[in-house]
């Protein structure tokens, strides 16, 4: 079902220079996304997810910057490319779907104009009329009714859900290899959320698109994505096939996250939360950054002093692992 590697991220680190020292927002993140594969990144707000997404497309502006690592798209490393080179890649091979539909479209230009501009920017040969026809098709593909007339409407005449569909239409306009969706459904009500996810499903299936879904909502990930990655304090602390991780979460943070999903079965009981706050990314501990809040490792010297190595868990899918000293016991098999 999954094609060859579209996006290969190796050792990517990003940081923000602030007056009180440098905040290491993304620390040594590496994974691959294959065509047709839906990879998720889950984490609380402040875990570095959005910065990571922007870093992928080279949209990190000062004072943020990519400190190290490489982002190879179809074999070509995007890190360090100038705006001139990146402009031919963004919106053609890799595109972005933004979280906030309200502010993501230029309020004083029609939807048609913004679609046509995206198309003709990467397909110079396309005439204006053809581009308009193609734009209408795209709107129909993302299930926007009466597409032809709606092209001349302005963003403020679209509902939140419809605007997100337009965002998706723009993202897939030039048939990109991979779409990075940064919290695409967060601002939408539940029913629209489901429709958007279903739309993503069809697009991935029909176009063999690679999808990198970034969200804080585990429920969205649970029945949608293939591979699940949990991000905490700028690092991927656990990766694996969705079902395997949900069944036996190896990293205590992943387990805590899953338990904090409101479960109808436990109606009336207090909701479980994770105490404490995410760590200050300017003064990260040498040991495990989750230690102060970790039900398993809190207070244990090894957790506080020694940074946990990534423990490979081969049976949970390619490249699965968990960064925890007790990952092996928790996963229930010996170290692979």
């Amino acid at each position: 079902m999954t094609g060859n590697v579209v996006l290969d991220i190796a050792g990517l680190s990003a940081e923000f220079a602030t007056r009180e020292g440098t905040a290491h927002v993304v620390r040594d993140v590496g994974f691959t996304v294959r065509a047709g594969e839906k990879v998720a990144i889950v984490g609380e707000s402040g875990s570095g997810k959005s910065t990571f997404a922007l870093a992928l497309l080279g949209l990190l502006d000062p004072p943020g910057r990519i400190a190290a690592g490489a982002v190879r798209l179809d074999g070509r490393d995007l890190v360090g490319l100038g705006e001139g080179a990146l402009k031919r890649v963004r919106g053609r091979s890799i595109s972005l779907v933004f979280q906030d539909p309200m502010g993501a479209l230029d309020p004083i230009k029609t939807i048609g104009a913004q679609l046509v501009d995206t198309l003709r920017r990467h397909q110079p040969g396309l005439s204006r009329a053809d581009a308009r026809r193609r734009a209408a098709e795209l709107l129909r593909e993302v299930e926007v009714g009466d597409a032809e007339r709606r092209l001349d409407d302005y963003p403020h005449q679209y509902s939140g859900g419809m605007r997100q569909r337009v965002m998706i239409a723009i993202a897939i306009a030039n048939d990109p290899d991979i779409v990075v969706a940064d919290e695409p459904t967060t601002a939408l009500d539940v029913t629209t959320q489901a429709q958007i996810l279903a739309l993503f499903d069809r697009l991935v299936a029909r176009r063999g698109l690679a999808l990198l879904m970034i969200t804080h909502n585990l429920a969205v990930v649970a029945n949608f994505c293939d591979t699940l990655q949990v991000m905490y304090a700028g690092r991927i602390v656990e990766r694996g096939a969705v079902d395997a991780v949900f069944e036996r979460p190896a990293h205590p943070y992943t387990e805590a996250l899953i338990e904090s999903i409101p479960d109808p079965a436990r109606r009336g009981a207090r909701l479980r939360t994770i105490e404490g706050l995410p760590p200050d990314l300017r003064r990260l501990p040498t040991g495990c950054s989750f230690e102060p809040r970790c039900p398993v490792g809190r207070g244990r010297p090894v957790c506080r002093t020694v940074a946990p190595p990534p423990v490979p868990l081969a049976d949970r899918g390619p490249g699965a692992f968990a960064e925890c000293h007790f990952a092996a016991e928790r996963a229930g098999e010996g170290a692979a």
Partner: protein
Amino acid sequence: MSRFLIGRLGASLVSLFGASLVAFLILRLSPGDPARLFLGPFAGREAVDALRVELGLDGSLASQYLLYIANFLRGDWGFSYSTGQPVATLIARRFPATLELGLFAFLLAFVAAVALALVAAYRRGPTDAGARAVSFFAMGVPPFWFGLVLLLVFFEALGWLPGPDGRLSLRTIPPPAVTGFVTVDALLAGDGAAFRDALAHLILPGVTLALMPFSFLFRLLRANLIDIAREPFITVARSRGLTRWWAFVRHALPNAFLPTLTASGLLFGQLLAGSVLVERVFVWPGVGALVTDGVLKQDFSVVQAFILLSAVIYVLCNLAVDLIAGLIDPRVAGAAR
């Protein structure tokens, strides 16, 4: 759109009436009898009274006002006794000079403001600080002081530009007047030398007059650009394939124009006010200098005609601004439709 237009036109007429009333009353309050001033110290009592009747100064305030408005609409804007000509011909001949200088100054201010604001908002850091320093200087420096400094440097010291001798140097034969704009008329007549001379005469007063509008436009445009540059649709535009610069130019700038545009209606007033000071320093045969003398010599008819004229043009300017705002910002036009 038409309901919106009629509403605005109706409103404009009301404000015009208000402006004419205010202008009429203020100047009638001031002491001194213009008839006496015109006829001079040794004129007899009867001649002064006769002139008062002729100028309509004897009736009640209300009758004087109505007489004035009736005449104004008929094109008889009264007689300017401080220059000895009907006001209508006087202003008709001198207004193009003010308009030409004003438009040239606005053009300079606009281009400079857009260029500097874009660069300042895009690069931030030292460039931004530098640009803001320039805008502060432009706002703070008194124009008549700056005008003279420009003359001292570029006319007397360097000799690059002509001195303050009006719109054309005496040596140049003025092109046949078609539009009243010497530069345009010179082009129409294909007279290159006259065009260059006219343009040269426009530069120094143009720059002096452009100071205030430039600083006003720059500060507003820059503030709006910085705000809008933070909006998500700029990042989205870049993710669609625009470089950061093009995202600024094609998306941030038009959106930043909107609030700047509504403020530019006020700029018209500043340009006219500025012309009063600049025309005097550069001996520019415009309406600004005429009004200053008019106020000093209490030449009611000139001052009033100028105020009413500027009110009409001001209202037209605002109407145009509202229409353009409607075209650019669908939300506004939409609401009005």
